[in-house]
């Protein structure tokens, strides 16, 4: 009856009010976003102009410097701070770098293979002057690297020697792992099945064929990297499904001499 009808009208009015409110909100939000976009575009255009002027005002080029104002002492110091930070970053490229912490030294060991810089490892050492020891506080060295053994052999008297040898272990490990990754990426069609490798990446076995050359023969190879500080194998063994294969000794020689991806390029 009348009550039900009134209820319905009330419900409708309420719903219309809610819709109206939502519409207002959306309009507000839209206007807000548009204003923000205008503001950001202005900021961006100003920066572009500033940058153009600065690029034109390079020493040796014609043009009036955009901002000939003398730098404030604060700006000079901030320049020097950034300059030193960048120099410390360059230090990282030498392999062994780091920074001093409150109680000790944090070493950063940056590895590389040929022209590519790869993983960094960290090691924090606390000197204990009383016992004339160095204690390893924190590190990110993987467990299959003989950290404990090396520290017992070299520390505390020969910190440089310790770091040099540790670095060689880490660098060779990352180099072997990188070779495997590159090889799998670049020669995926040549590889049969999945190469097997241990965590230290010093024992590797895989099967391959040479598309277009080896026909149906599949080569099986096992590489042993006997020296943990080197990234080339000391022992190469293998066989070929088509026996005997005259090519295998040649392949063997390449694996012994060249990094894995390069050896394959030469096949």
């Amino acid at each position: 009856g009348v009550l039900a009808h009134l209820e319905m009208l009330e419900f409708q009015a309420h719903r219309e009010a809610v819709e109206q409110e939502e519409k207002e909100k959306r309009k507000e939000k839209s206007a807000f976003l548009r204003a923000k976009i205008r503001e950001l575009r202005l900021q961006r255009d100003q920066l572009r102009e500033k940058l153009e002027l600065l690029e034109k005002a390079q020493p040796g080029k014609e043009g009036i410097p955009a901002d000939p104002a003398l730098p404030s002492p604060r700006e000079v110091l901030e320049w020097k701070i950034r300059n030193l930070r960048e120099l410390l970053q360059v230090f990282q490229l030498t392999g062994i770098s780091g920074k001093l912490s409150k109680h000790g030294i944090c070493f950063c060991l940056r590895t590389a293979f040929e022209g590519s810089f790869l993983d960094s490892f960290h090691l924090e050492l606390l000197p204990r002057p009383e016992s004339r020891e160095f204690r390893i506080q924190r590190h990110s060295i993987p467990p299959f690297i003989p950290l404990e053994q090396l520290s017992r052999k070299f520390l505390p008297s020969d910190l440089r020697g310790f770091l040099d040898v540790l670095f060689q272990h880490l660098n060779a490990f990352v180099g072997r792992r990188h070779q495997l990754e590159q090889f799998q990426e670049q020669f995926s069609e040549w590889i049969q099945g999945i190469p097997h490798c241990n965590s230290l990446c010093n024992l590797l076995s895989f099967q391959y064929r040479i598309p277009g050359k080896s026909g149906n023969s599949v080569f099986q190879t096992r590489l042993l990297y006997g020296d943990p500080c080197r990234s080339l194998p000391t022992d190469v063994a293998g066989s070929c499904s088509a026996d005997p294969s005259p090519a295998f000794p040649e392949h063997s020689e390449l694996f012994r001499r060249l990094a894995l991806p390069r050896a394959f390029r030469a096949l």
Partner: protein
Amino acid sequence: MDDSICQAYEDEIQALEEEIGLLTEKYKDIQQESTFFSDEEILKSIKSLQRETQGETEGHKSPSDLKTQLESLETDLSFFTTFTGFQFASHSKKTLERTRNRTVQKHRLSGKCHSLSFQLEFQLLEMQNNEKLSGVVSDLSIIMESREDSNVSKFVSSAEEHGNLLTFFRSLSTYAGWYEHRRLTFLHFK
């Protein structure tokens, strides 16, 4: 319908903010790389800043903050120079490219390792992939005084061939260390 328009606005805002970020970095790069202040100018600035803001500590980092940061960096550099034997005399760089994930910079570096001096030029491409930072060196050119020494020229040529900057530094460190040790031994017996 309105939602997709708002989304488009928000996407544009994000793109603009990124672009502004990049432009600001580029501007800072050029300013940094085209300026040079001598050590005297640095000392003068430290003194003048201390005088200027005696007692004032609002807004920017206080001068003692900047001074502390500077000293901490200099201490680190000095320690590692002594420890590794690498002393850098000059370093300049120019940012050739800077995008969200890539930076390409050309570096000029000169210095010595123990008593052996070197001068290098190289290009470094740095990329951020997920959490990993990787760097690739190219166009490596190395000048060393003692290049006539066959040991030195061997590791220099092989490093230049593959852009192997790290191997160059490590080999130089080992060789210079040995060379220094030999030099000191001879001095001892003189």
